[in-house]
């Protein structure tokens, strides 16, 4: 049984990483993150890049949906905005350390506009409004050819730092890992501030929050802006990673993917965001390798791979909602509690 976790000052109680153990694990984790590309093959490193991008985007959606209670079915479209902004600027020679934040800002700006209806509508209505926005933005991606390249898509020049082109997966990996770390720490910090607490109050009951003196309009818009900023950054990184992008990537299915990731991970926790994004990225990979194993005996198995993915995806969402509504993070907490209290029963 773990003992000795006494909080003796307010500073200690408000600390972002509260125990020496958690700080030690975090250090181990960062060492792992930085040496990992040398130990893994190219496929795994590429997968890790996509994973990092998914983590960033899910974090943005969790700030909006999990912490502030604003359901968004249009998150993928904001990633698209970020991606096209980065592509547009990068083609004109702007370096990546400017295009990535600018892509985020552009998405945040659009998030402000989309957030305006959120003052009057919420819940299902807001979901429908963001769904509408998703379709309208994808329509714009397809039709506004001078900027977005239409259905053929855009090319993104490789990011380069002091003449070093970030043109392979390992180099991109460090960029993604850096952005993901900064943004996740920022998000975790956000909920130790006045703004973050206002978000949580709005989620729990918006009218009560307003009575307590929280300016609903301002904070809801702010939540939309921050969430969209994360999506924009993720979209820009995605553009730099794949180097070419078409509107078909930023569809409703991707928006639903992120919603599923934060629900399966755990709404309103940053650890849940990471767990959910990892889980949702790895499940299709696992499924694919399982199917290719089965395909040795049943060749038809590969034909139904993509429909099977949809079925598994749907059943996972439903299963988690019905049986484990607080997500993977709750399983994690149970496991941890068992170890902390050992040899006593939780």
């Amino acid at each position, binding site marked *: 049984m773990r003992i000795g976790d006494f909080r003796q000052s307010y500073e200690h109680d408000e600390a972002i990483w509260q125990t020496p153990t958690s700080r030690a694990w975090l250090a181990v984790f960062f060492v792992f993150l930085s040496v990992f590309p040398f130990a893994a093959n190219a496929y795994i490193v590429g997968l890790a890049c996509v994973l990092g991008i998914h983590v960033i985007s899910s974090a943005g959606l969790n700030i909006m*949906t999990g912490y502030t*209670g604003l*359901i968004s079915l249009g998150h993928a479209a904001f990633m698209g905005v970020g991606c096209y902004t980065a592509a547009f600027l990068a083609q004109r020679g702007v370096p990546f350390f400017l295009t990535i934040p600018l892509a985020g800002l552009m998405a945040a700006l659009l998030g402000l506009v989309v957030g*305006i*209806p959120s003052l*009057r*509508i919420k*819940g*299902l*209505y807001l*979901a*429908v*409004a963001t*769904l*509408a*926005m998703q*379709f*309208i933005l994808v*329509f714009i991606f397809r*039709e506004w050819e001078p900027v977005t390249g239409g259905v053929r898509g855009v090319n993104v020049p490789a990011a380069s730092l002091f003449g070093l082109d970030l043109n392979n997966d390992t180099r991109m990996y460090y960029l993604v890992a850096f952005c993901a770390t900064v943004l996740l720490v920022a998000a975790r910090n956000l909920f130790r501030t006045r703004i973050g607490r206002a978000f949580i109050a709005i989620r729990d*009951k918006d*009218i*009560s929050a307003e*009575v307590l003196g929280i300016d609903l309009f301002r904070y809801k818009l702010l939540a939309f802006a921050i969430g969209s900023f994360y999506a924009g950054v993720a979209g820009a990184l995605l553009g730099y990673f794949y180097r070419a992008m078409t509107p078909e990537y930023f569809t409703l299915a991707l928006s*639903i993917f992120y*919603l*599923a990731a934060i*629900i399966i991970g755990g*709404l309103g926790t940053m650890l849940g965001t990471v767990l959910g994004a990892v889980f949702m990225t790895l499940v299709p990979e696992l499924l694919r390798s399982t199917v290719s194993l089965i395909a040795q005996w049943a060749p038809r198995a590969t034909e*139904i791979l*993509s*429909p*099977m*993915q*949809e*079925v*598994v*995806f*749907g*059943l*996972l*969402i*439903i299963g988690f*909602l*019905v049986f484990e*509504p607080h997500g993977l993070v709750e399983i994690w907490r149970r496991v941890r509690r068992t170890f902390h209290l050992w040899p006593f029963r939780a």
Partner: protein
Amino acid sequence: MNFDWIALAEFSLIGLLSGGLLALIALGFVLIYKGTGVINFAMGEFMMLGAYFFYTANVMWQLPTVLALGLTLAAVAMAAALIERAILRPLSGQPVIAILMATIGLASALHGAVDAVWGGNNYEMPQLLPRKPFTLGEILIPGQVVWSFALAAVIITAFTLYFRYSSTGIAMRAAANDPVTAYVLGIDVRRTQRLTWMFAGIVGAVAGIVVASITSLSPALGGAALGVLAVIILGGLDSIAGAIVAGLIVGLIESLTAGYLSGKVRDIVPYVTVLLILMIRPYGLFGTRQIERL
């Protein structure tokens, strides 16, 4: 330049008439929203399921049309009841996002299952509605449009009468209005909710069969219902009358944009409409204005 009045009249009539089908799909959404407070994002998949069942029974097994139709509706109603029992009931009382995501997950699972069983190919559905066009002076209206409108009108009228006069219908309205009070008064709320899902499944299946027989049968049919969200938002989520009026309006707008602008623009018309309505009048034309209290 001479304005082509006849073309305008033709577009308008076709639009209004095809609005009947939109209203029918909207009825499926409204039934479930009224009865259980859920927007069922799997409505399109119910339509798809109905169409595929009917295709299997009528074309593959060569059953007569009426028998195939009966079997299909029974099967979809069963499936809807099962879904209500297995997924929606355990989630009752959960936050909106949980229920919303459950129906989205359901949509994904059903879509994948249909794709796995029947494959992604296009099937040619049997022609159920007469094709013979109607002529009104110089205006030419395709027969299917007229007949689907008539069918939708009949079904919607039947449901309205059922809710107004039958005792089960009245019980369902009572449970929809205030589940707790209805429960206290001895109404089996679980039964009415199950019936709600079954009815919505049947409505969806009929709409799916009609849509598939007009166009063709493929898994893409599942996405068709999302555009109908414009209809239910415009009409007000909980109003059948609103669904009818809004169905006609949206049908008209879609037909006019398709006629005068392009087919591509037509596809996003419903979504632009949704955004505009939500900003101006979130409760729609006939929906209940919700007043929140602490």
